[in-house]
């Protein structure tokens, strides 16, 4: 190991401060007793209590959760199908165009995606509500799923599927019994990505949401415009810890799985 020099220590501290200081301040102030956000008046958890009595926030959270679960599930199904076709279909006319078009929404400004969806919904006379948000979120998160899944499929050994066919599977069975279980980690991470994208999307949701369907990011944004409330700090702290626990759990599980795999492989070589 190299010794920690002053330069390294300083740059590390500054870097992490840059990343986490704002969040740290937010977390600290969520335990502030005062109603004024910028004045410290002692430790308290009263804003967490207030938050859980606030029907509007709870409703928004429930809408967000439903939208995220449903849209990421649909996006995963569609994105996986798109990835399969684009990776597997071999060469066909316009293949490059199609795969380019799958990735285009990744770089498209959200405002434009949101606006075009809004125009579409108005054009076909679809009332805006949860349903339209789900459609919009499915649209943009699908391409993320397809990117994640196709990168796994590129390295997938096709002879596994051929072996399944050879042993008597129909093509559908081969997919269900062999391909899907093997690419499952990529499909699951695609789903998680779509879920988080939907959870924190503000721009597209505000274009496509109706009066009856406010998501949490929209609710936070609109209540901040009316003035900062300590409740928002509490809510944000909860969101941060929710995400942090999720990320840490996911990385711990995958770390443990890879350690176990290594140990098993060592055992196999020794045997």
């Amino acid at each position: 190991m190299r010794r920690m020099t002053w330069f390294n220590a300083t740059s590390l501290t500054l870097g992490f401060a840059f990343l986490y200081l704002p969040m740290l301040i937010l977390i600290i102030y969520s335990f502030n007793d005062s109603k004024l956000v910028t004045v410290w008046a002692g430790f308290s958890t009263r804003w967490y209590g207030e938050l859980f009595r606030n029907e509007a926030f709870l409703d928004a959270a429930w809408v967000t959760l439903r939208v995220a679960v449903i849209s990421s599930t649909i996006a995963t199904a569609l994105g996986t199908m798109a990835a399969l076709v684009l990776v597997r279909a071999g060469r066909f006319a316009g293949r490059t165009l199609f795969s380019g078009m799958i990735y285009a929404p990744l770089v498209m400004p959200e405002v434009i995606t949101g606006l075009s969806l809004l125009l579409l919904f108005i054009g076909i006379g679809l009332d805006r509500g949860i349903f339209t948000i789900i459609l919009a979120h499915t649209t943009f998160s699908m391409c993320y799923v397809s990117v994640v899944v196709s990168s796994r499929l590129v390295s997938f050994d096709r002879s596994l599927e051929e072996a399944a066919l050879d042993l008597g599977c129909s093509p559908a069975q081969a997919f269900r019994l062999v391909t899907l279980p093997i690419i499952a980690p990529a499909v699951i991470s695609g789903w998680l990505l779509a879920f988080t994208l939907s959870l924190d999307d503000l721009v597209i949701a505000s274009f496509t949401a109706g009066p009856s369907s406010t998501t949490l990011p929209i609710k936070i944004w609109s209540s901040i415009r009316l003035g900062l409330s300590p409740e928002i700090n509490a809510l944000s702290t909860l969101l941060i810890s929710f995400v942090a626990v999720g990320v840490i759990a996911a990385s711990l599980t995958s770390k443990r799985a890879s350690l176990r795999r290594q140990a098993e492989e060592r055992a196999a070589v020794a045997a």
Partner: protein
Amino acid sequence: MGQTTFEPWNDPEVEPLIQFRNVTKNFGDFTAIDDQSFDIYAKEFFALLGPSGCGKTTMMRMLAGFESPSSGTILLGGQDIAPIPPNKRAVNMMFQSYALFPHLSVWDNIAFGLKRDRKPADEIAERVGQMLKLTRLEKFAKRKPHQISGGQRQRVALARSLAKAPKLLLLDEPLGALDAKLRQDTQFELMDIQEKTGTTFVIVTHDQEEAMTVASRVAVMDHGRIIQADTPANIYEMPNSVYVADFIGEVTIIEGRATRTRNGDAYEVAFAEGQPPLRAQSDRSFGIGQACHLAIRPEKVRITAEKPEDAANAVQGAILDIAYLGNLSTYIVELPSGHLIKAQTANTQRLSRRSFTWEDTVWLSWTETAGVLLEG
């Protein structure tokens, strides 16, 4: 043909299991298989041998059903297999990469094909048990493919492809990933299993030694054509072309012009200025002065210090190189004309003093029947 030897290809009464009839396969502009017709018989161990890109894998994939011929028909047991999808064919394949399902245990991998046939559970368990016993994998039934060694994986792949008792088993470079020692053991194991199960095996390989060891017949392929299909002994001793002679084993090939000898039972091959012509017998007929190649296996060439008395062919040269292989030593001898001829001697005695060394002048001799005369 005698009752004891297994040579169905010489018996016109026997119906072949597989018949290729004028099969051509094109991939775009590239012709992978060029109008090939040949038969494979039940219980044969048939090897398709050739360099990579010669079409041997395409041949096998057409049998498995992953490719279909561009023209021509393939018959299995007298039935055209073109309309039958791979999952309905009584053909199983062992893949080069083994293609073991990584998420299933050894037991479940072997049971996979049986479960697709909706066989009762106790029947599946019994069959998997048999297969595990046959491939000596009983101890590893619960392991996942990544928890066993390469040789064990290879046996799981074999057990899985044999579990459904196919009429025909295809093996695509089955031993490619094993080291030399393990490969040799596994070759004998394969032959043993083939004999025990009575299954017809078709093996694809680029390793000529492997093909010669395991196969009842070897088809040597090049550029989408079978150049020669025959028993290993005939392929080695009676190659029909320079390509086959050169591809199988070590050989010295000398270019020359053939002329029938006066008494008519052999040819004389003139190959260089100032060298006496070489004598060789041949069933093929050559015109006067027709261009030809003489192929001589190094183990049929004797190396001596003095000129042998009554040899049909004797040439003098200097030793250019010696390759010591343990059991054999190969000498490469350069003639004054610049031709290089290989001669091999068996090292039958331990630690015997080597009789020849670099730059020694020696005599090489061989009989009239040692060399094979081939069209140029």
